[in-house]
């Protein structure tokens, strides 16, 4: 295939977000009929690259050629199909209440007449398409009734169908599969791979974005690794060792200043046993007073479920929690019981679950203090909130302004203040610094260290390994709902965490 015109060629793609380089002169060449893996950890730039291709981001610099022809960037949003680019994202983009056929033809404006749909002919066409790809799908089935793998197959076949027929110059297209597998069982992933192979046999090229090195090793012809916005290298998969890929993804250690020292051994403040939720299975963990315990893993590994289960925000299927001699049944735990036991939870979805954007800072901050009171002293509440705002260095003009007027970092500091004023015994955090600038992050870390100094226990679930290196005394690594590794003290480094996460994937491939 060497020498032939690449299906897609990216040169020098650069994208900056507020001073931070998300992509730095990235190159990528996609050959006709290949499956090309795109690997990299969180923040490596792979999703930025995909979003430039889909037209969601306008790049600062860079050029794109498809089949040797220049394509002007940015691609107008929604026009990528005319260039033969089609996307399947992790959420698949299917309407669950609609039938397979309705989903298949939804948005197919180029082929369908706007004023009349011949449903019988469309159903015939769909059956032929499914037969061609050996798919067990019926046009009349409702998507909600399909198994997860069939939904994924439908989304992929729809995307492939779009770029096969309606292209201006008739060549097969490019399919971008963005993490389609993390929630699928292993045997179903094989079915998807077989389907991808059949598609490439017809000349379609596939970009396969994944965090899962095994899947990339199994299905791709070549793969490209991104780290910190740069293309590290492109590998021929068949002749590449797994360890070389892991090294490329994780990179060499850049030391950050850890802000926590080793703790003397002590009796645990919090003990969790047999905790199970949607993904998490039989989790047992303990935290000692003054300790920050980090939970992490790859997408879909279940680490992020733990804080919401332990706070009663989501129902656990089983589990119990012991906190200072008090035993709580997590399966029946409600937020009010958790709060009464001085367990607080700072959720990841700040705009929906962290603050009420329309309401004032005072109203947001004082809600947990006022339960059951019949004569609120509004002036005192405002004054207390003013103090809180100062103590947690929330930049605000007044305690009466709406929470929506604050920046993300200041909103998060307000949420932290709202909960930490209760002097909690256990603080649960889910991605506490998502979308927050560096300065506010440091302030949030300061507050968490203060909780520790007071003898509180902290559990922090995050996908940001660097954050854990900075503030976690100990880190538990999750995989497929279970804890599969633990790092302590000086071993808590960004690199060691990443290696442990990727090693997990390796071990269950070997099983």
């Amino acid at each position: 295939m060497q020498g032939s015109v690449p299906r897609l060629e990216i040169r020098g793609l650069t994208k900056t977000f507020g001073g931070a380089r998300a992509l730095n002169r990235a190159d990528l060449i996609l050959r006709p009929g290949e499956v090309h893996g795109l690997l990299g950890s969180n923040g490596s730039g792979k999703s930025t690259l995909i979003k430039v291709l889909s037209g969601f981001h306008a790049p600062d610099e860079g050029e794109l050629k498809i089949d040797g022809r220049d394509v002007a960037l940015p691609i107008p949003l929604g026009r990528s199909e005319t260039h033969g680019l089609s996307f399947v994202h992790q959420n698949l983009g299917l309407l669950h209440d609609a039938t397979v056929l309705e989903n298949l033809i939804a948005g197919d404006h180029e082929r369908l007449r706007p004023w009349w749909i011949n449903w019988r002919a469309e159903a015939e066409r769909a059956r032929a398409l499914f037969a061609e790809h050996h798919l067990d799908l019926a046009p009349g089935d409702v998507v909600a009734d399909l198994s997860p793998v069939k939904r994924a197959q439908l989304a992929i076949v729809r995307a492939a169908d779009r770029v096969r027929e309606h292209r201006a110059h008739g060549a097969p297209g490019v399919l971008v599969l963005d993490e389609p597998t993390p929630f699928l069982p292993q045997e179903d992933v094989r079915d998807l791979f077989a389907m991808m192979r059949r598609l490439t046999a017809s000349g379609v090229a596939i970009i396969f974005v994944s965090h899962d090195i095994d899947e990339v090793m199994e299905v791709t012809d070549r793969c490209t690794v991104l780290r910190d916005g740069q293309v590290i290298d492109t590998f021929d998969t068949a002749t590449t060792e797994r360890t070389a890929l892991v090294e490329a993804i994780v990179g060499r250690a850049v030391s950050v200043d850890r802000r926590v020292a080793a703790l003397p051994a002590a009796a645990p403040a919090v003990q969790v046993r047999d905790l199970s939720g949607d993904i998490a299975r039989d989790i047992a963990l303990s935290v000692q007073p003054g300790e920050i315990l980090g939970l992490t893993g790859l997408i879909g590994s279940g680490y992020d479920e733990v804080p919401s289960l332990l706070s009663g925000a989501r129902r656990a299927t089983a589990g119990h929690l012991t906190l200072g001699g008090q035993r709580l049944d997590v399966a029946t735990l409600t937020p009010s019981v958790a709060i009464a036991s001085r367990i607080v939870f700072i959720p990841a979805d700040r705009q929906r679950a962290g603050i009420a954007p329309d309401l004032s800072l005072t109203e947001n901050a004082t809600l947990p203090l006022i339960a059951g009171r019949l004569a609120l002293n509004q002036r005192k509440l405002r004054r207390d909130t003013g103090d809180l705002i100062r103590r947690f260095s929330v930049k605000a003009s007044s305690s009466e302004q709406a929470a929506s007027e604050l920046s993300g970092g200041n909103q998060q500091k307000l949420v932290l203040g709202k909960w930490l004023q209760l002097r909690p015994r256990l603080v649960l955090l889910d991605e506490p610094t998502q979308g927050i600038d560096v300065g506010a992050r440091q302030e949030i870390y300061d507050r968490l260290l203060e909780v520790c100094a007071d003898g509180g226990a902290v559990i922090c679930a995050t996908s940001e390994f660097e954050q854990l290196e900075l503030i976690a005394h100990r880190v538990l690594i999750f995989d497929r709902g279970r804890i599969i590794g633990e790092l302590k003290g000086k071993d808590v480094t960004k690199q060691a965490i990443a290696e442990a996460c990727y090693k997990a994937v390796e071990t269950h491939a070997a099983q």
Partner: protein
Amino acid sequence: MRHSSLTYQFERFGLVVVWLAFIALFGVLRPDTFLTWSNFSTIFGSEAVLVIVTLGIIIPLTAGDFDLSIAQTLTLVSMATALLDARLDVPLWLVLPIGLGIGALVGVVNGAITIYFRVHSLIVTLGVGTFLHGITLYIGNSQTVSGVSPILMEWVIIQRYFGIPVAFYYAIGLAAVIWYMMSYTAFGQQLLFTGRGREVGRLTGVGVGRVRLTAFVISGVLGALAGILYTGTTGSANPNSGTYLLLPAFAAAFLGATCIKPGRFNPWGSVIAVYFLVTGINGLSVLGFRTFVQDLFYGGALVLAVMVSQLVSGRQERAL
């Protein structure tokens, strides 16, 4: 600080200013008929029922739910009160709690269906309201029932202070109670979070289901109270009495949310909005416009109020 700014103060009292301007305008045009104390005392007294219905709907509205059944709760309780009192001779001290109990029961039904079956309250209360109207027509045989005890009328419309029927003072007293509840009790804050930040409230230990149910029960009881006052005002019960109150009440609730405490449903704003709307209609009819002005005015006010509140919140978003 936004709260001390001139525009904010204008927003708060804009409706009051427009109301006074209306009074001045009609007063100049028809000083003899419009600008009389008897005209005003009639307006204040007769629209107390509408004030209470409006106060009733702002409670579930604050919690994020619509109660469209409140007008039919009013009609049913009005009819039940008249029947129990005039036809069955049940003593008044028993009739009143029965009436309020009916309202509370309607609230429980609305709330239970909305919360436990997760159906939108708009649909539930639309259906329940129509069902209640059916009951009203059945028990009242589709006819107006009169002959209500004069004691009830005495305590609603005949007693006057400063020339204004006592019903007006009930409505104002109720507005004060609701104002206190919304501003100075934990329940008021929980109501607010249930409407404006339900997930935040839930995670902070607010029983949002219980709060919504309570809000429906309050609106049911206030609808029932309005029904009793309606019977007392007219001395009879008309099977269609509430039908013409629903839209004005919503218009007043949304218009009221543009003043006093802009952006929030609030009792004093609601009271002002009711009397603003009624003054406008009264003034226009004094000028000789016919009944169609009612629909123009109420319908227009509802749409305009919603537009204004969108404009206000849109301006705040742009200011970010």
